[in-house]
C-alpha cells in the first residue's frame, strides 16, 4: 500500500514568509509525528498527534511553529515569519496506534525547506 507522503518535496522561501508543509500518513494510522533534521544531525522531535489532538508538542521550538490535524488524517505544519535557521528537512512519520511504546514509525521522504 501507499506509504507516508509529504508535499512539497522542496520549498524555497524568503526570510519572513509563511510556509505550510503537508503530510499524508498511511491510511488508518492514528499516530502522526513531525521531526526536523538539520544537515549532519539526527532528526529532532517536534510534535506528536494521537488522532486529531496534539498529544505532545514539547519539541516545537517557538510560537512561530504550529501544526494541525483537523480530521485525524492529513497534517499541516505551519511556520510563520520564517528565519534562515528554520532551513532543514522536515520529516513526518505515522504509526498504527501510538498508544504503546513499541510501534514502528513509518517515515515519509521529507520536505527540504530552504529559507533565503
Amino acid at each position: 500500500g501507499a506509504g507516508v507522503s509529504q508535499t512539497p518535496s522542496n520549498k524555497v522561501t524568503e526570510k519572513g514568509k509563511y510556509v505550510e508543509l503537508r503530510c499524508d500518513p498511511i491510511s488508518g494510522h492514528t499516530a502522526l509525528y513531525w521531526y526536523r533534521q538539520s544537515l549532519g544531525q539526527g532528526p529532532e522531535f517536534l510534535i506528536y498527534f494521537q488522532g486529531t489532538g496534539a498529544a505532545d508538542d514539547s519539541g516545537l521550538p517557538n510560537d512561530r511553529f504550529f501544526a494541525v490535524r483537523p480530521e485525524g488524517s492529513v497534517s499541516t505544519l505551519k511556520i510563520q515569519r520564517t528565519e534562515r535557521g528554520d532551513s532543514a528537512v522536515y520529516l513526518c512519520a505515522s504509526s498504527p496506534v501510538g498508544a504503546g511504546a513499541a510501534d514502528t514509525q513509518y517515515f515519509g521522504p521529507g520536505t527540504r525547506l530552504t529559507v533565503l
Partner: protein
Amino acid sequence: SQQGEEDPQALSIQEGENATMNCSYKTSINNLQWYRQNSGRGLVHLILIRSNEREKHSGRLRVTLDTSKKSSSLLITASRAADTASYFCATVHPQGAQKLVFGQGTRLTINP
C-alpha cells in the same frame, strides 16, 4: 536535544566485511530502534529491541543492548554496496509517548 551518540561518526569498509556501529544514550528507555537513511531523506526502520532484551537478529543485522552501560550496537554482516547509508539509533523513554530521540548517526560507506 540529541540523547544518543553514535560511534564512529563515519565508517568505510570493503564489500563483504562486517560493519559495527555503536550507540550510547543517557536516560532509561522502553526500547531502542535502529533506522537507515539514504541521501538525507526518509528513514527506514530496521529493528527494534526492547529494554528487557539483550540481543536480536534480523537477516544480516544483529543488535545488542546493554542497559547497564546504556549502550547498543548494530552489526551488519557480509556488507553490500547497497548498505551504504547513514544509520541512526533512536530511543523511546518509558513515559515518552513513542517520541523517538535520535543520535547523530554513523555514515557507513561500503567500497566495492
